[in-house]
């Protein structure tokens, strides 16, 4: 492997991403909404809303009763306000957080693979002495690195925002916990690999950034299913389940990337282009 060439591909793709408004806008807005605005809102307004006349306390109690017992065990000793904050900021947001690496990896990969075909800049790259594998690794890393960076920075911002917003009610730090650490360091890269693999496969069949991004966006469905399962209490993101989820996502991501690398051949790209 020629790592100097791989580094050059990463540098080229990242510079191109940073200078594209179309790519950067979702990369800024989504983390801002999910990692700062929403947790700040939940943390601040949950106790306020519960204090308001007409707050439906019996329904909330009924909802909490339906949660998995393992999850309920973590709520012992908390007031209703504290419990709702813990539920929303520690549990409900956990699967939602995974949208971040998935979205970043997909957007950057769509720009790097399909977008490059659209801009007709791939041909110059194809005539360089890099091998197909070096080109593929360079492009995969140029999508993976920002996905992981955004995840990490997003997690730090989220932890800070959630703790600050919840402090008046909780009087203690609610994050990070082991589940979230596993989520960030293990499940998040696995989720990024899934988004990346799906986008690489889609990009080999389409010639435009938007098209690739929209079709590959279907991969967000399993994450949304997890969000719904967690919110409705069907599933509880325990430490073990989170770790297992990482294994499953790595497997799916691995399979998708395996098929992705098989489609990424100079001759195939040019023949289809």
């Amino acid at each position, binding site marked *: 492997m020629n790592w100097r060439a791989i580094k050059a591909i990463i540098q*080229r793709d990242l510079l191109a991403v940073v200078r594209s408004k179309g790519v950067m806008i979702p990369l800024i807005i989504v983390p801002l909404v999910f990692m700062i605005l929403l947790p700040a809102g939940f943390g601040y307004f949950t106790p306020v809303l519960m204090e308001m006349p007409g707050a439906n306390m019996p329904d909330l109690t009924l909802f909490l009763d339906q949660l998995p017992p393992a999850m309920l065990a973590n709520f012992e000793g908390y007031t209703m306000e504290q419990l709702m904050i813990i539920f929303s900021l520690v549990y409900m947001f956990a699967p939602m957080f995974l949208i971040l690496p998935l979205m970043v990896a997909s957007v950057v990969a769509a720009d790097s693979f399909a977008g490059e075909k659209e801009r007709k800049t791939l041909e110059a790259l194809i005539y360089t002495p890099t091998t197909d594998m070096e080109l593929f690794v360079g492009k995969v890393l140029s999508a993976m690195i920002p996905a992981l960076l955004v995840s990490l920075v997003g997690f730090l911002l989220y932890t800070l925002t959630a703790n600050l917003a919840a402090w008046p009610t909780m009087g203690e730090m609610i994050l990070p916990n082991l589940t979230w650490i596993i989520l960030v360091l293990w499940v998040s890269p696995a989720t990024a690999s899934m988004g990346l693999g799906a986008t690489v496969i889609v990009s080999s069949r389409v010639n435009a950034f938007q098209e690739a991004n929209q079709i590959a966006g279907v991969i967000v469905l399993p994450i949304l299913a997890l969000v719904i399962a967690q919110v409705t209490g069907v599933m509880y993101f325990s430490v073990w389940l989170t770790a297992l989820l990482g294994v499953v996502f790595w497997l799916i991501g691995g399979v998708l990337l395996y098929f992705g690398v098989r489609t990424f051949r100079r001759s195939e790209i040019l023949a289809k282009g």
Partner: protein
Amino acid sequence: MREQPVIVTQGLTRLFGDITAVDNLDLEIYRGEVLGYLGHNGAGKTTTVRLLNGVLTPTSGKMQVLGLDPSVNGAELRQRTGVLTETPSVDERLTGYENLKIFAALFNVPQADVEKRVGELLETFQLTDRAGDRVGEYSKGMKQKLALARALIQQPEVIFFDEPTSGLDPVITRQVHTLIQDLSKNGGHTVFLCTHNLAEAQRLCDRVAVLENGKMVALGSPAELARELWKGTRLEFETTHEALPTALQTLEAMPDAHEITSAEDQPAISLLLTLRDQIPAMVERLVAAEVPLYRLTPQEPTLEDIYFALHENDQEVEA
């Protein structure tokens, strides 16, 4: 004895489904030579460049470039070749300097030499002042110059130009022509020039290969092709205004004289004779008709004449 060819193909063929993009191509190109690869759009020029750089594999046949088999040693070969693609293919979000610096790394230019090499190329192509601007802000000519600079970044031994002057203004076209001549004559580089600009090919190429529907239909220097394929002779002669109608009448009576045209502002006539041997007979007839001849100039056929004659022959064969 002539040296070993730099590019050799034998029966090189590439199919895309039912379409034959390159059909049984036999070609030898030598060091320092500029070979013009002529053909209409879709004739198979770009596919040949891709095959010779190992980015497409042939369906059948053999090829060697710089002693390497492109389908086996593609990466090693591309280190020694430069390609200017039909579209400049430069990254518009990056600056000119960044484009060159990144490709210097991709072409393994030694780290210590990168700044010097990039600086030299920017200077050569008069891009130094705009090196820090994003390429999206460049004119078409500047983008093409940047793409040329990129194709030369690692000082390749063989350079493939795919329509290098397409859409460029005459000033930049001339600069590109000078560069190609300089690369070949002073630098000893081998140049494979794909073009459908026949004047460009005539001006720059030592030999030309004419491609039609993937098949090479002629190969040789423009002069060789003229001898082989162009049996007629184009002539221009000067007479007097008074004698012009008689001259035209005399020539129109000759069955082997074609394309007879007179100039609007001077007493000159140009025509095409089917055979060169008919010149004395034509002169005899004009003198007998008392047409004074002040100047008689035979004109060498242009590559354009040859190209279209070749094309017409093929259409006749097909019909």
